[in-house]
């Protein structure tokens, strides 16, 4: 009850923190989609390189986020950005790459080889094949990777409050240092709601953008 009252009195702050939170995740995941899909496409055509890249991606995820932030501080201090928004974005970007690269790769190599054979045999060049056949048909799998990246990183971004990146994690860190359960709960609840809501909206987006012919084969 106290927590609810706290939330009601601090709606403006919550909104600002949510915006900070989303700007970190949004910018990082958008970058990761561009790079991750490109990398996924690249390794899908190179069977020897693929396991190396996928393994490296998995390795990045095993690094604890608090440690990764720590590693970035001296590195980015060189350009005067050791703490704050930039290291948070970079960390989230790195964590997002693995699921997006992996799902792009899986989606592409999992396509029926007959599609590739038909596309090549009919005279599509590599980019026509990619844009007209491979990416549309792998889209649901790629999008699933994006959703995993977003949900996972909304949680990770909460920790970025410790390096001064702002976001909803600020409520949590202050709640801990001030032993204020109201702020702690506010932060935790908001992060959870944000994660669930983002996943739901991205699922809606995924359904909207999936080619209609693929939805039929799934149902």
């Amino acid at each position, binding site marked *: 009850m106290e927590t609810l009252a706290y939330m009601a009195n601090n709606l403006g702050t919550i909104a600002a923190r949510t915006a900070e939170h989303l700007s970190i995740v949004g910018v990082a995941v958008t970058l990761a989609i561009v790079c991750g899909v490109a990398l996924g496409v690249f390794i899908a055509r190179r069977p020897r390189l693929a396991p190396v890249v996928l393994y490296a991606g998995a390795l990045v995820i095993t690094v604890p986020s608090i440690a990764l932030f720590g590693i970035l501080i001296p590195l980015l201090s060189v350009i005067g950005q050791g703490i704050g928004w930039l290291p948070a974005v970079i960390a989230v970007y790195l964590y997002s790459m693995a699921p997006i690269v992996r799902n792009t790769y899986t989606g592409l190599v999992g396509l029926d080889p007959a*599609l590739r*054979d*038909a596309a*090549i045999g009919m*005279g*599509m060049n590599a980019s026509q094949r990619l844009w007209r056949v491979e990416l549309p*048909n792998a889209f649901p799998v790629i999008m699933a990777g994006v959703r995993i990246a977003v949900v996972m990183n909304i949680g990770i971004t909460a920790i970025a409050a410790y390096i001064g990146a702002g976001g909803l994690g600020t409520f949590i860190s202050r709640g801990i240092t001030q032993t204020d359960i109201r702020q702690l709960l506010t932060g935790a609840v908001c992060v959870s709601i944000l994660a669930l809501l983002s996943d739901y909206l991205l699922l809606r987006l995924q359904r909207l953008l999936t080619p209609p*012919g693929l939805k039929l*084969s799934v149902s």
Partner: protein
Amino acid sequence: MIILENLRKVYGAAGTVAAVDNVNMAVQEGEVCVLIGPSGCGKTTTMRMVNQLIAPTSGRVLIGGRDTAEIDVVALRRSIGYVIQQVGLFPNMTVEENICVVPRLLGWDIPRMRARAAEMLVMVGLDPGEFLHRFPSQLSGGQQQRVGVTRALAADPPVLLMDEPFGALDPINRESIQEQFLKMQRKLRKTVLLVSHDIDEAVKMADRIAIFRDGRLEQIGTPDQVLTYPVNDFVAGFVGADRTLKRLRRIRVEQVHTGLVFTVGSTVDLQVDAAPGKIHMDDAGRVSGVVVQGRDIGVAVVGMDCDLRVVVSELLRLAVPWLPCVDADGRLRGVISQSAISRYLATPALEGSVRANVEVGHAANA
């Protein structure tokens, strides 16, 4: 015309495995040539070298006199229809979009593509109103392959490559789509290379059959030639011990029957290869009853355009040595006998001398 010249494909580091070994052959304009052989014989590799899906180790492929190695590979493939066993329709596209893939690559305008897609669907017996906007997942296997064939033909390529196109279909569907394809082919006269492992399909579809073993072309010829004169034991074994029966499918009554001279509206009283009988006719010359060796077998006749499989089947069913043959309107044209068929099969080159020995007696009134 497609010409394969000293075509060779070698795999393995030291060039140890010859998948295709010095193949020379020509496919005439408008001809269906079936490449056949056991798996691993090089038939598919040979076909895939025609549209450069596999690069030859040495040798040339000429289409319409041009060396395909000198044509841009993408342009080459767009000018060659391609049908595969797994169909490979794009699930994200409608039937119409699938059919229009190559026309779109070639930059056709939209009204022309639309009209073409509808026209092609009609040709394979699918209603455009019902099917144009469906997705591949909403089609049965047979319908999918009909669309697959349509898609290959959409841009009207002179050459068509088909890799076991009907191999994945159930027998009934296969039969009907084969018939439909032959009907289309009589009209379109494409130069077709079709890979198959089914000798019955080859006999049915081919103008010429090319039989492969271990990367080598063992024999190429018309179905009748290959079935009659297999060049070696391998070919004989591959076409089967019942090869004579298989030949029957490609021989029509017209080629073997013996013509009769008679008065319309009478009864012809005759002896065919020493077996007596009577053929009754109505005033229009249509057969109204048949008696062979004293046995009334009703209006048992065979059409002039029937294949001999049907005739032999009828002869066996009715246990008679001969049957009258009739034209499309049921009018008597002649007779066809078991011994004439045997003689035809024994000496195909001497078609003129294998007629039945027919003696027509006095023509009684009907």
